[in-house]
C-alpha cells in the first residue's frame, strides 16, 4: 500500500511533465496536421537554458528560491519560444502544402540538427545541477521503515502544471487568440478569408508549445538534477505517445495521456522491470495506434478525397 502510494506520487509528477510536452505535439498536429518531431529537442533546449540561467543567476547573487525560480522560468520560456518560432519559420512554413511526408522528414532533420548543435556548443557531457528545492512531507510510514514522502518539488511541479493547464485552457477557449487557433484548426482557408492571420496563428501555436515544453525542461532539470543533449528523443517519443493516447488534437486528451503515461511508467518500473520501461511506452504507442488511432478523447478523422 505504502509502496503503491509512493509510485502514484512519482507517476503523477512524471505525468505532469509529459503532459506539458504533449500539449505542444497535440496543438501542432491539430492545427497543421504534422508530427513536430523536433518538439522533444525544444524541451531539451529549454532544460539547457534552465541550467545556464540557474548558474548565471547564482553567480549574480540572486539565490532566494522563489525569485530565482520565477526568473529561470521566464528566461527559459522566452528563449525557448524563440527557438520554436524560428524552427517553424525556417523548416516547416516553406513546406506547407507540400506532399504529406515532407514536413515530417524536415522535422527529423531539424531534430538531428538541434541535438548536434547543442552537443557541439555545450559539450557532450552530462550536466549536473545541485538541487534547488529540498525537503518534503512524510505522508505515511510503514513498520519496516519505508517512508512515503511527497517532496516540495513534487508539489511545486504538480501545482505549477495544474495552474498552467487551467490558464492554457482559458487561453484556448476564451481569448481571441484561442478562437483564431481553433478556427485555423477547422479550416485554414475559411479562417483566412474571415480575417484571421493564419501564419501568425500558426507561429503562435509553436511559440506556446515551446513555452510549455520549456517549463517541462525547467522542472526536469530540478527533478532529476542531470540533463544531457540526448534527453529530448525519449521524452519526445513519450510525450508523443501521451498525445496519441489521449487523442491527438485534443488538449484535455494530452493532459490525460501525459498523466497515464507517467503513471504507467512509474508502476511498470516499480512492479515489473526498470530496464523495459521504455519498451512499455513504445508498446502502448504501437497498440494505441493500431487499435484506437483516435485515442481516448480524440475525434475520428475522415479523409476527404
Amino acid at each position: 500500500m505504502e509502496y503503491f502510494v509512493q509510485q502514484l506520487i512519482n507517476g503523477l509528477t512524471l505525468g505532469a511533465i509529459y503532459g506539458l510536452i504533449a500539449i505542444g505535439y497535440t496543438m501542432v498536429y491539430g492545427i497543421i496536421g504534422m508530427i513536430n518531431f523536433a518538439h522533444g529537442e525544444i524541451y531539451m533546449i529549454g532544460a539547457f537554458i534552465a541550467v545556464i540561467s540557474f548558474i548565471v543567476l547564482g553567480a549574480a547573487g540572486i539565490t532566494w528560491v522563489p525569485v530565482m525560480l520565477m526568473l529561470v522560468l521566464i528566461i527559459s520560456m522566452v528563449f525557448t519560444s524563440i527557438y520554436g518560432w524560428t524552427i517553424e519559420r525556417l523548416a516547416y512554413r516553406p513546406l506547407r502544402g507540400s506532399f504529406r511526408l515532407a514536413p515530417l522528414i524536415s522535422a527529423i532533420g531539424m531534430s538531428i540538427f538541434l541535438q548536434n548543435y547543442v552537443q557541439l556548443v555545450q559539450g557532450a557531457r552530462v550536466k549536473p545541477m545541485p538541487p534547488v528545492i529540498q525537503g518534503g512531507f512524510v505522508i505515511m510510514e510503514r513498520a519496516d521503515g519505508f517512508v512515503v514522502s511527497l517532496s516540495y518539488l513534487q508539489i511545486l511541479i504538480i501545482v505549477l502544471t495544474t495552474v498552467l493547464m487551467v490558464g492554457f485552457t482559458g487561453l484556448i477557449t476564451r481569448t481571441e487568440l484561442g478562437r483564431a487557433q481553433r478556427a485555423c484548426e477547422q479550416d485554414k482557408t475559411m479562417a483566412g478569408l474571415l480575417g484571421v492571420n493564419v501564419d501568425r496563428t500558426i507561429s503562435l501555436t509553436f511559440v506556446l508549445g515551446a513555452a510549455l515544453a520549456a517549463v517541462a525542461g525547467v522542472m526536469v532539470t530540478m527533478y532529476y538534477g542531470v540533463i544531457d543533449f540526448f534527453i529530448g528523443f525519449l521524452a519526445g517519443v513519450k510525450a508523443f505517445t501521451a498525445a496519441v493516447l489521449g487523442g491527438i488534437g485534443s488538449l484535455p486528451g494530452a493532459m490525460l495521456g501525459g498523466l497515464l503515461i507517467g503513471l504507467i511508467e512509474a508502476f511498470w518500473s516499480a512492479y515489473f522491470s526498470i530496464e523495459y520501461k521504455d519498451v512499455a511506452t513504445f508498446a502502448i504507442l504501437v497498440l494505441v495506434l493500431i487499435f484506437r488511432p483516435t485515442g481516448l478523447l480524440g475525434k475520428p478523422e475522415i479523409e476527404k478525397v
Partner: protein
Amino acid sequence: MTAIASHANARPGLNVGAMLKEAGLTALVALALTFPLVGLRTVDVGSRLTITTRFDEVLISVLLVFVGRIGLILTREGHALPVLVVSLVVAVAAWFAPLPSEILRVITIAGAAVLAIRAVIAVRRDRSTLSQQERDRAMDRLGARVQDAAMWIGPIAVVFAIALPFMPFASRSVVDIGILILTYIMLGWGLNIVVGLAGLLDLGYVAFYAVGAYSYALLAHYFGFSFWLCLPLAGLLAAFSGLVLGFPVLRLRGDYFAIVTLGFGEIIRVVLLNWAVFTGGPNGISGIPRPSFFGIADFDRRPPEGEIAFHQLFGIAFDPMHRIIFLYYLILVLALLVNFFTMRIRKLPLGRAWEALREDDIACTSLGINRTNIKLAAFTIAAMFGGFAGSFFATRQGFISPESFTFIESAIILAIVVLGGMGSQIGVVVAALIVIGLPEAFRELAEYRMLTFGMGMVLIMVWRPRGLLAHRDPTILLHPRRSARQQQADSEAGA
C-alpha cells in the same frame, strides 16, 4: 558591408530604413538564439558547473546573419551584382580569415555560397527566387537527364566498382571505405523499395538490419553455422520479422506508420540491449566468424590441418588484402542484386501497384488493388534485403552491439533515399557517396557530420521535397520508345 551600404544609397527606390529594420530584426532573433546556448557554455570545474563565455562567436554569428539578410534583401530589390561580388569575397575571406571556430567558417562559406547562387539567378532572370514550379521543372529536367544518362553511367559505374580494388590508388583504407559506401548503397536501395516505390515512410529500417546481423551472429555463436548458410537464413528471418511487424501497422496512415516503425525499431534495440543472457547485452557479440571463400577455402595465413587456404588454392602469395577484396566483391554483388531486383520488379504488376499506391492510395484501392497485401510485400522484401546487409555487416565487423542499430542509423539510411530522390536508384548512389563518402574524406570535420546532415535534410525538403534526383517516370507508356527527356520536353510544351 560599407560597400553594400554605399552602393545601396546610390540607387533610387530602395528604402534603406526598412531594409535596416528588417535585417536588424533578423539579427535580434539570431542574438536571442545564440546568446544563451553559444555565448554561455557550461563547463565542469571540479564537481561544479560553471560558465565560460564566448561572446565573440555570438557577435560574429549575429553579424553574419545581419549581413546575409541585407544581401537577401538587396538581391530581392534588384541589386544582385554587388551582392554576388561581396558574397564571393566573403566566402574566400572566410576560408583564410582566423575565425574562432571551424563551424563558423563552414557556415559562413555555405551561407555566402547560397547567397551567391541566388544572386546569379537574380542576375540572369531579374528575380531573386524561382517559383516552386520553375524550380521543380528545372530539377525534373535534371532528373530526367540523369535518368537518360543512367543508360551509360550505370554500366560505367559498375565497371569502375569492379576495377576499384585493382586500381593503383586502392589502398586498404580505400577498399574499406568502398565497402562501407556499398553497404549503405545496398541499404538505401532496400529502403527505396518501401519509401521510394511504395511511398511508406519507414523510420525503423535499422531493425531489420539488426535482425540480420544478430541472426548471423547468434546462429554462428550457438550452432556454429557458416556465413554462407546464414546469409539466406538471416534474410528469411528478417523478412519474417518484417511480415510480423508489418501486418498490424500497414493499415495506418503515413505519419502514424512512420512513428510506429520508429517504435518497433527502438523496441528491438532495447530488447537486444537488455536480454543480456542471449544477446550479450551492451557488450554485444564478438568473434563472429569471417566468411570463407564459398565454403571452399579460408583467408587465413595458416589454415587448420586438413583444410586449404585461399592463397594455397590459387597458388599465390598470402596477402591480408585478399579477404578485404573478397568482402568488397561480396557486398558489390549483394547491392547489385538488390538493384537488379528493383529494376525488374518495377516492370511487374506488383511494382506498378507500389508506384500507383505511392501516388494515390485511395484511387488505388478503388481500382481493386489490395492495399495491405502489396504494402506488406514491399515491407517484407525490403526487410529481407536489410537482413542480408545486416549479416554482411556482422561478418565484416566481426563484432556487433546494439550501439550500431540506433535511430540515427535509420535516419542516415532514410536521408540517403530522401536526398538522392525517392525512387531514384542512381540518386541513392550519389547520396550515399555524399553522406558516407564525404565525411570519410574530411575526417577533421567529422564532429560536424551529423549537424550538416540534419541541416541538409531540412534544406533538401525545403528546396525540393521529392529529393534531388527524384524522377517519377511512368513505368507504362503509350509510346514506349521515347526517352525521358523527350517526354519532359513534351509535357513542358503541353504545360
